[in-house]
Each structure stands twice: as structure tokens, then as C-alpha cells.
């Protein structure tokens, strides 16, 4: 089956949602990670943190609910859930840096076999800034990166060494792509799951570093 871009995004988002356990406080990065909120199972009790100072992001507002003073870190208008709280940016990053957020799911341009992440700038292109990404990668208890397995030219985005400027060194715990789920371990990259439509060889061929296979690897996993 040929995957459209939105098919691929949805597949990644649905798989990433499984990382989120009931009771978790989670920070979803700007962009595709934000979409994961749409797939969170209703029987899970999840609190989403927004680094601009909100714990308890709700749905997008109805037209008549829009409050210009209430946005997420992607500057989109949102609502608050019951039990939400607001705080300043120093408190927000204290919360992140201090290890109180259970999971951060971030987008990635490149991830190295040692868990280095590059996701904030491409040399030669206009620098926009790292925002909160460099703090998040050192703060949340678990860092999961979601991204396409290969770039537009078909080249691996999981690499031996990142060529792009780093967001953080040895910070990524898990990588979820449209093709596989891989953990960054002390013994290198370990494939845990392979998405339907792909073989282990497909994953090996589209990943630059050597990959190991978990004894409990699942095929057709998602």
C-alpha cells in the first residue's frame, strides 16, 4: 500500500500515543507531536504540559471560547482542562528540568546511534531558535523522538553521527518512525517493533548504524 503523507503522520501519531500511560504528565513538541493529542485514548488520564506556562492543555476552543491569552507553545489557541494550572516560564522549565514531566515526544531531523538529537537548525537556512527543545531533552524522564525513517531523498535520518547542529547529546531514549520503533541502549540501537509493510531488512537498509533486534521484536506491529 502506498502511504500518503497524512497516512504516514497518522501511523506515527497512533503508535506514539501508545507511549503515553494513564497518569502521565506529557510534553508534546511543536508540529507533528502536537497531533498526537488527537489520538489519546479517552480512558487514559493524561495531563499535557505546555512550556509557555500551562499544565493541562485542553482541546482547541470553539469559536466563542477563543481566549487570546490562552495558547500552547506552538502559539495555537487552546483551552484548559479541569484541574489545569498556569505558572511563569521559570517555574515551567523548573518543572521540565527538574524531571517532573514523565515523557516528552519531540520531532527530529536526525538521531544518532548514541541518542544525539538534531532538530533545531539547518546550516545555511535562517535560524529561528531552539525554543524550549534543548531544555526538554535534558528534563523529561523519557525522550521519544518521532520522525520519518528516511528523508525526502530516501537517506537515513537515523545516523552514526548527526551532521546537523545538535539539540542534545545522548538524550533520546526511543525513536518511532513510520517503519519501526527503536530503543537507544548502552549496546546500541535495538529494534523493538517493525511496522506493517516493512521487513527487518528494510529497516536495516534504511538505517545507517548497525541495529540489533530485540528478542521480543514484533512484526506488523502497527
Amino acid at each position, binding site marked *: 500500500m502506498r502511504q500518503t503523507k497524512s497516512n504516514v503522520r497518522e501511523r506515527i501519531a497512533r503508535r506514539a500515543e501508545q507511549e503515553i500511560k494513564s497518569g502521565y504528565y506529557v510534553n508534546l513538541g511543536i508540529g507533528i507531536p502536537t497531533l498526537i493529542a488527537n489520538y489519546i485514548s479517552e480512558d487514559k488520564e493524561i495531563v499535557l504540559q*505546555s*512550556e*509557555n*506556562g*500551562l499544565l493541562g492543555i485542553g*482541546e*482547541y*476552543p*470553539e*469559536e466563542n471560547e*477563543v*481566549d*487570546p*491569552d*490562552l*495558547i500552547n507553545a*506552538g*502559539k*495555537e*489557541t*487552546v483551552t*484548559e482542562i479541569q484541574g489545569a494550572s*498556569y*505558572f*511563569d*516560564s*521559570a517555574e*515551567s*522549565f*523548573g518543572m*521540565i*528540568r527538574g524531571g517532573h514531566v514523565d515523557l516528552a515526544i519531540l520531532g527530529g531531523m536526525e538521531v544518532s546511534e548514541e541518542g*544525539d538529537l538534531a532538530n533545531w537548525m539547518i546550516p545555511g537556512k*535562517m*535560524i*529561528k*531558535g*531552539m*525554543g*524550549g*527543545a*534543548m*531544555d526538554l531533552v*535534558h*528534563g523529561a524522564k523519557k525522550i521519544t523522538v518521532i520522525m520519518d525513517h528516511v528523508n525526502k531523498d530516501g537517506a537515513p535520518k537515523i545516523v552514526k553521527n548527526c551532521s546537523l*547542529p*545538535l*539539540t*542534545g*547529546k*545522548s538524550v533520546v531514549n526511543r525513536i518511532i518512525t513510520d517503519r519501526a520503533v527503536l530503543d537507544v541502549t548502552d549496546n546500541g540501537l535495538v529494534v523493538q517493533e517493525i511496522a506493517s509493510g516493512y521487513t527487518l531488512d528494510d529497516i536495516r537498509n534504511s538505517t545507517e548504524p548497525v541495529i540489533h533486534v530485540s528478542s521480543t521484536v514484533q512484526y506488523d506491529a502497527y
Partner: protein
Amino acid sequence: MKKHYMNGYDAVSEIADGSTLMVGGFGLVGIPEQMILGLVESGAKNLTIISNNCGVDDWGLGLLLKNHQIKKMIGSYVGENKEFERQVLSGELEVELIPQGTLAERIRAGGAGIPAFYTPAGVGTKVAEGKETRVFHGKEYVLEHALYADYSLIRACLADEAGNLIYNKTARNFNPMIAAAGKITLAEVENIVATGNLNADQIHTPGIYVQGLLEAKQEKRIERKTIRNG
């Protein structure tokens, strides 16, 4: 009783060329709109601006940018507008990019008398290049220094005459730390009430940090209006 200003220009007219200003807000949320317009009017030049973002083309700090009043921008996420890019590439504008949490903590440190602290953000990246690092509990941290400002321009929802401030929702963001880190802090607020009308347990910024107040209506422009059933 804090000093009251008539309008944005009145509040900022004493700010001299070459000043370092901290400006509250995240995106266009919680920015001191009228004081920024006042700065456009005053024409103060060669400003160093410390603020998380730099506005958009036609609003917020983007107006100062367009007017060539900013010499140096210190923030965490900039370049939401074309003019920013053009000025950086042409060398007219200096930029210093700082991880958002480090920016918040450096501003907090400035207001709280902490000259420097260690943080993990940026270790092993361009951000830590040339900076002192040190290992604590087996993890590497980088030494970062406090930020200070000649003037802090902030926005709140409510103030009393004693300068106590209450913010609304995510419009709080950087404002409380910026309030404390400025030699002179000017607060633009939606409403000023008589002293005694705010609950002392609910004050976000105590009046000790605030030197002047401007009551002003806010446009509150929205950058990305996202609607549930849109």
C-alpha cells in the same frame, strides 16, 4: 502609590538610545502592546532587547525591528518575520539565541541576586561552546550567567495602586521574572483597581518590583487561531 502614565509614549519616553530592555510575552501573548507602540513613537535606537520572541511583521517587537530600533536581539525563538531574516543576513541586527528554559532562568537569576548557575540545557551543542562546563552527580552542566535590564516592560491583567500584579492564563509567561530583573519596571495593565481590592494570596508579582503603571486597552492579536470545529 506607583507612578501612573497617560499612554504608551508617556511611559517609555525617558528610555534612552542604547538601553537594554526586557520585554514580556510569549509570541504575541502577554506583550506590553502600547509601550511597544510608544517606543516606535519615541524612536529610541540601538536597543538591546531581551524577549523570548521578536513579534511578527506588523505587531509587537516586529514594529521596532521594522523601524531599525533594535541593535541586538536576545531570545529563544525568533524569525517569525521576513524582516528579521533580512536584517540578520545584512548584518544590521545581532542575534543571541538561548534555550528557552535557560533564558527564563537567567532572567530569574538577574532579579533574584544569583549571578550564575549551572544547567544541563545546551551541553554538547553550539550553545555551550566556549562556556565553562562541570560534572555534578555524573552529568555535565554548563555555567550560565544572570541577565539584567535597564528597563523591563511587562503586561498584566490587573494591578492595584501599590503595583501588585495579576496575570491572565498563559499571558503570565516571562512577565514575572522580567518584572524583577529590570532596574526600572513598567507594567501595562488592562485594569488598575484601588489598593485593597486584590487578594494578597493571589498576587503574582508583588508591587516591590514595579515602578510605574500604564492602564491601557489591549488588542491581543492572535497569531494562530485554531478552532475545534473549524
